[in-house]
């Protein structure tokens, strides 16, 4: 049983490291600021999430587990908000995203049913 938990957490840690590394490479490879944010959010969501969940399997029951959950929660919320703030500040300061085109939703999003 203990070996099974160890194996699961090792797989999660390795997968998390892989996603973090992918995000780091994307940060260097992508051509413009707005596409680099996507690479950075890759490490923020699944990279951090998988590593922290892998650590949770190692932690067992105790005070360490809720602390790891708190770190996961905080990093998800603050990472999102920081990405949005950076993108908005860059746009407001006049940095134009390099895009191949733009589309507009004609239907006006979801039909509100109430």
């Amino acid at each position, binding site marked *: 049983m203990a070996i099974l938990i160890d194996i699961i957490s090792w797989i999660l840690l390795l997968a998390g490291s892989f996603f973090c590394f992918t995000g780091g490479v994307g940060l260097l490879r992508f051509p413009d600021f707005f596409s680099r944010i996507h690479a950075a959010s*890759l490490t923020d969501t699944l990279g951090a999430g998988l590593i922290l969940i892998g650590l949770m399997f190692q932690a067992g029951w105790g005070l360490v587990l*809720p602390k790891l959950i708190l770190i996961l929660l905080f990093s998800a919320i603050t990472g999102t908000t920081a990405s949005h703030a950076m993108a908005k500040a860059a746009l407001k300061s006049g940095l134009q995203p390099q895009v191949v085109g733009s589309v507009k939703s004609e239907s006006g999003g979801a039909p509100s049913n109430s």
Partner: protein
Amino acid sequence: MFYSLALSIMLSGFWLVNSGHYNPLMLFFMLVSVLFVVFLCHRMDVIDGESQPLNLTFTIPTYWLWLAKEVVLANIAVARNVWQGPESISPMLVYVKAGQKTDLGMVIYANSITLTPGTITIDQQGKQLTVHALTREMAADMLKGEMDRRVSRVEG
């Protein structure tokens, strides 16, 4: 009063999780600090249904599960784009209408878009969100409005 009580319970739980010391003196300090923070929040006038959306308690867990699945799928797609190189991306700007009725619903929607890799909310004017999508497929997914419908349902 109800929201103050909910805030006190949440803060106490936070303190208990982070402390690990449970002798009477420390618990007295916890009581004092929680009451002080609730007093400060009361002075700042931030204790209301917007800072503590308790009406979402029962609807939001299923949405979180769905969002977690979406985040994993989007992560794999973006990781593939990273390894295929800069030629595989086709950045698009998407303008979508948010169908939510409350400000809180719109915040949940915009933050969910940003949390999913491959799409980022970069601006908001009224009910129109400007979204930067990494590829055409992600922009097309965005326009289907699946997430918008689900957030509208969470909001109730």
